[in-house]
């Protein structure tokens, strides 16, 4: 369990950040900044590292920093790793971003007044997750200011040890599942969430905080390299709905079931969880998922057959699904995915490329 958390916290994206040409006042222009950005972090937090590269070349004025990828202004409150997973169909290393210090697109992006804005947004998300998991925001509300600050700083510094210490007061809960209790591979201890002390509280509501970023891929492309770039946020569907897990005796609620449950508009009536998930298969999934983890980020098996199982031919096809830079098998139990791959604010961020058949009969 701790191993998975470490994997998530150590995940980083190499960035190559270019100053926008309109803001370059020196000849020759400054070289790009090379920064390793934590996946669980946020782009504005990198400013102290980036600024020194460009401060001597900026035109006069007040800084209003924003980032852009291939013309798309980046939403600063989406974790860096999620932006990368979503916008780079074929992972680009280093990831080439453009930074602007002027001309904030305030008609498109909500304002960002530095670290405070990002922190406020994080705490609010934490409260939202708290509400989803526990039915109220008490855990977060009862944290003292200094505890909240400590928690936030552990995220800024991507310091897992500090995070575990400060989040012990948050009863973030685990999701129990038949898979978990039957498994003999993982010990009981490994089922506990962050903060080993006394926070292994089962989620009261049985709901999981999930944020889904869906791109409807209208054309077929063989390689991810050929995927058309996302030129507007209007092409991405953001679905912020809690996932309700439907438990059925002897059946495992999988990642695939979760996606279908979260998008009933696409997948028709809510379907029952997948059948035939016995212990061995579950272990198999875990092993394989571990293997996926060990390989380099983003170079997972794109060629995985992503069938929609027993569903009808005109059902949407999941072409790609990424969480924390890996592509978990769709049969993976959702409890494992949610418990191990969530972000520090307790949301599971999932990027999905879906192909919706154009002639859908209704």
């Amino acid at each position, binding site marked *: 369990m701790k191993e998975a958390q470490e994997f998530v916290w150590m995940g980083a994206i190499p960035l190559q950040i270019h100053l926008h040409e309109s803001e370059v006042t020196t000849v020759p222009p400054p070289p790009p900044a090379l920064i390793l950005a934590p996946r669980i972090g946020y782009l504005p937090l990198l400013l102290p590292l980036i600024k020194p590269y460009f401060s001597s070349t900026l035109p006069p004025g007040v800084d209003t920093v924003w980032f852009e990828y291939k013309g798309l202004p980046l*939403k600063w409150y989406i974790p860096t790793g999620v932006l990368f997973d979503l916008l780079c169909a074929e992972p680009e290393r280093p990831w080439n971003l453009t930074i602007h210090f002027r001309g904030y697109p*305030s*008609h*498109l*992006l*909500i*304002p960002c007044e530095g670290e405070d804005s990002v922190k*406020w947004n994080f705490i609010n998300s934490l*409260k*939202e997750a708290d*509400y*989803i998991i526990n*039915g109220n*925001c008490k855990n977060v509300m009862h944290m003292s200011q200094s505890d909240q600050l400590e928690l936030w700083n552990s995220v800024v510094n991507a310091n897992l040890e500090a995070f575990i210490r400060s989040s012990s007061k948050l009863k973030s809960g685990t999701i129990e599942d038949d898979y978990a209790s039957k498994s003999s591979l993982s010990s009981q201890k490994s089922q506990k969430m962050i903060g080993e002390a006394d926070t292994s509280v089962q989620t009261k509501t049985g709901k999981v*905080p999930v944020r889904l970023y*869906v791109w*409807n891929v209208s054309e077929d492309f063989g390689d991810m390299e050929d995927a058309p770039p996302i030129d507007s*946020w*209007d*092409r*991405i*569907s*953001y*679905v*912020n*709905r*809690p996932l309700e897990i439907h438990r059925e005796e002897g059946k495992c609620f999988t990642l695939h079931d979760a996606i279908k449950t979260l*998008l009933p*508009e*696409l997948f028709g009536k809510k379907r029952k969880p997948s059948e035939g998930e016995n212990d061995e298969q579950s272990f198999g999934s875990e092993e394989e998922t571990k293997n996926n983890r060990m390989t380099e980020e983003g170079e997972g098996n794109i060629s995985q057959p992503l069938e929609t199982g027993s569903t009808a031919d005109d059902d949407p096809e999941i072409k790609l699904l990424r969480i924390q830079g890996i592509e978990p098998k769709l049969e993976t139990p959702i409890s494992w995915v949610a418990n191990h791959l969530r972000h520090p604010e307790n949301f599971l961020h999932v990027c999905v490329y*879906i192909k*919706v058949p*154009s002639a*859908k009969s*209704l």
Partner: protein
Amino acid sequence: MNESAWDGTLSASEFSASAQAFAEKWKLNNPAYPPWTWVKSLEVPIFATNQQVEEGYLSLENVCIVKSNDDEVASCVEGEASLYDKEDEESTDSATLPYYFDFHIIYSASFRVPVLYFRAYCSDGRSLGLNEIESVLPANSAKVLLESKWTFITQEEHPYLNRPWCKLHPCGSSDWMKLLFQAVEKVDRPAMELYLVSWFSVVGPVIGLGIPIQMLKEP
């Protein structure tokens, strides 16, 4: 007998039903105002393929707010008579630049309550910043806004439209909805159709939109 006490929240389908009821009552009792319309979430690109999508939100747009003297806010609709009947007190030399507001009532699946999103703009289409909006709000809400900056009205992204809007925070909504029904209606669990009417009776005045008392009564 319903054992568990009502927690002040409502489900997505209850919201849709309540929104219909609210829109109908509004139309009936607020003829001076444009009606609220139900907008299906077809902006969400992937949902556009399914005409049966039920998710949507209530929309009231182009409401003209004219600030009269002091802290009273008069609402008008494109120059029509003000609902607050403050015409006599309006002074022509105060800052009466007409602002236009768009209001969206959107269901929050996380908090299971409605959330009010709004934005304001001038007649030339320029969006108003949070500070300018604050200056148009009634006095008491401006005060609350000042004292609790991060937990009241904030600028956030509209859930569907990918643009910055203002949002009235939902965190305490379920609590005061519960109290409202227990205290006023003396029931433990409301007829869900009335949820939005009651909700709006609290939220509306904050942004300068009162509702006529008739709306609160059963038809």
